[in-house]
């Protein structure tokens, strides 16, 4: 039967390559042709089965063993070509014959991913043209079937997911000759069900290529706009209209970096002079109003980490020295609140650190990767524990010891979330948040540098 499939495959290729036009209609016609060819071949095999199978059965009986025997047979007279047919004949009668299967079937995924699914962002740091985003079921111990699909992302793409449309977004960079040639930066819209691109918006070739963050690509205004951080090294933000799938314009943000969504139609950006700038985008994207806070944080000695979490309209930045800086982003200007310490008695030396060092769950708890013996230069060190905070009451409510220290983390949605980490071996560990219990490790999934982990929204 394998050879039958082989024959059908060869005929399919002949049919396809015979086509001079590669339009969808032609491919569709070709598929129909392949299907018809398959049916014809199938009928011929069936017709020859009786005599061929008798030969095979005799052969099996002579050897006295249960086995599969091959029998070569038959010209395909109708086609005028010679071909080989094969029939599996051992133990005839007790095993059902395999039916010919349909060729060309491609799997699809549900529009709403289950709560335990995660999205793994592999920057492919050792071969950046081949970055990828993987969809994986973190609740599964079936190492084969938990892998659901993937798409590609080039030169450290950045990523976001919609909660209102069945869409995933990436922004990445392509060069016409792979590692050289004309540069194209593109915002690509993927269908969650097919993981296939369904639209794209070509952007000014300015997007920042940096270690991935949550805030390189963000959605605002009830997900009507997408924001892309640019760095050339002049800093700016490109604005994409998600309804019309068009590029609206670019807002300069000199001296600042990344885009933190405001509650309304705007974003804030953290600046190198210890301020935050807020950019309000009017109905017309040219109508930009920017406001800036006074300097409020010590950018030299206790800088805000970029790795903030957003809970409602509040944004919480960890700092290098273990404080949390709340910023109210509900209005038309960011309003910094009073910073408070993450550390209590006996916590001396512990500091936040990692690549994606924070997470948030649906109950509004903040998770932070923490490492002991912190000092200048340890702010990207792997965390051996995850500390969980009730940010409203400024209290640590849990402390999860990790099986292996981790550089990145993510939290799945729902009331009973999973925590996933990228451990120091660059494979994924899965924990149950409520109990802190380690559940499983997800390895060998083709993600060599899974820098970012996202719970499916």
């Amino acid at each position: 039967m394998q050879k039958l499939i082989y024959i059908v495959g060869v005929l399919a290729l002949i049919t396809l390559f015979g086509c001079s036009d590669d339009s969808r209609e032609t491919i569709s016609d070709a598929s129909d042709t392949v299907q018809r060819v398959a049916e014809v071949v199938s009928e011929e095999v069936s017709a020859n089965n009786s005599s061929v199978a008798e030969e095979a059965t005799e052969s099996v009986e002579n050897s006295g063993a249960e086995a599969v025997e091959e029998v070569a047979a038959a010209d395909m007279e109708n086609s005028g070509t010679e071909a080989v047919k094969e029939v599996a004949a051992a133990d005839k009668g007790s095993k059902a014959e395999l039916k010919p299967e349909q060729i060309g079937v491609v799997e699809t995924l549900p529009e709403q991913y289950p709560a335990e699914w995660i999205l793994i962002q592999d920057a492919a740091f050792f071969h950046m043209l081949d970055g990828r985003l993987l969809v994986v079921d973190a609740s599964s111990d079936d190492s084969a079937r938990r892998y659901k699909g993937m798409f590609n992302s080039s030169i450290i793409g950045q990523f976001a997911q919609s909660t209102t449309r069945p869409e995933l977004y990436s922004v990445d960079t392509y060069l016409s000759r792979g590692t050289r040639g004309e540069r194209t930066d593109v915002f690509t819209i993927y269908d969650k069900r097919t993981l296939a691109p369904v639209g794209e918006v070509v952007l000014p070739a300015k997007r920042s290529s940096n270690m991935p963050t949550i805030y390189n690509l963000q959605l605002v205004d009830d997900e009507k706009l997408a924001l892309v951080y640019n760095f050339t090294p002049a800093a700016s933000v490109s604005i994409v209209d998600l309804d019309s799938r068009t590029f609206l314009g670019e807002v300069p943000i000199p001296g600042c970096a990344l885009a933190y969504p405001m509650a309304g139609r705007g974003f804030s950006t953290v600046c190198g002079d210890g301020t935050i700038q807020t950019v309000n985008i009017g109905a017309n994207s040219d109508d930009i109003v920017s406001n800036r806070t006074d300097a409020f944080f010590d950018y030299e000695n206790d800088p805000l980490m970029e790795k903030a979490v957003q809970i409602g309209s509040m944004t919480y930045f960890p700092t290098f020295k273990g404080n949390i800086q709340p910023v109210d982003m509900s209005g038309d200007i960011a309003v910094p609140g009073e910073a408070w310490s993450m550390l209590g008695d006996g916590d001396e030396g512990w500091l936040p650190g990692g690549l994606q060092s924070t997470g948030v769950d649906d109950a509004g708890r903040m998770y932070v990767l923490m490492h002991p013996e912190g000092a200048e230069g340890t702010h990207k060190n792997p965390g051996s524990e995850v500390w969980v905070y009730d940010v409203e009451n400024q209290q640590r409510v849990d402390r999860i010891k990790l099986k292996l220290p981790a550089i990145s983390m993510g939290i799945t949605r729902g009331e009973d979330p999973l925590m996933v980490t990228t451990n120091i071996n660059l494979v994924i560990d899965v924990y149950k948040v409520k109990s802190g219990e380690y559940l499983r490790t997800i390895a060998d999934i083709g993600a060599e540098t899974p820098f970012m982990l996202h719970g499916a929204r």
Partner: protein
Amino acid sequence: MKWLDKITETRARKVAQSTSRRGFLGKLATVVVGTTAAVPLLPVARAEQSGGQQPAEEGDPNSCDYWRFCAIDGFLCGCCGGSINTCPPGTEMSPITWIGTCENPVDGRNYIISYNDCCGKTSCGNCLCQRNEGDRPMYRPQLSNDLNWCLGTQSVAYNCSTAVVIGTALDE
């Protein structure tokens, strides 16, 4: 020195936005003082101005614990066909970059190290090294090793990073 930081920073930002990309380097000025009259100011004491012999260095320049790599993040060019201050064949050195301030254990001086990326080929893949002393978030890009600094080059493809001494950091 806060006033000097502010002036230098404001000036450097204008230069960076309006003129050359190299001007961006002029923004670094927290522990050093400008000594050249050129615009943009590169606020480091240049080695050639100090005269005399170059100080010695110790250690393996292709090992991640080598003193110059105190704020590097990437593949060491010395393991990729280049050296600590040269790019591998066929690549192009980025003219703009991030810097670190690293102490040379031999002479006890702090040096400004420019981690110019080599660009135009995909990741070298050898001798990956990350150290973060003095590294700062991307809103202070001149001190941030999270950025791909293959900017101002023909290609944004990142291959490896050098660690070039561009001067001594003077005490505040």
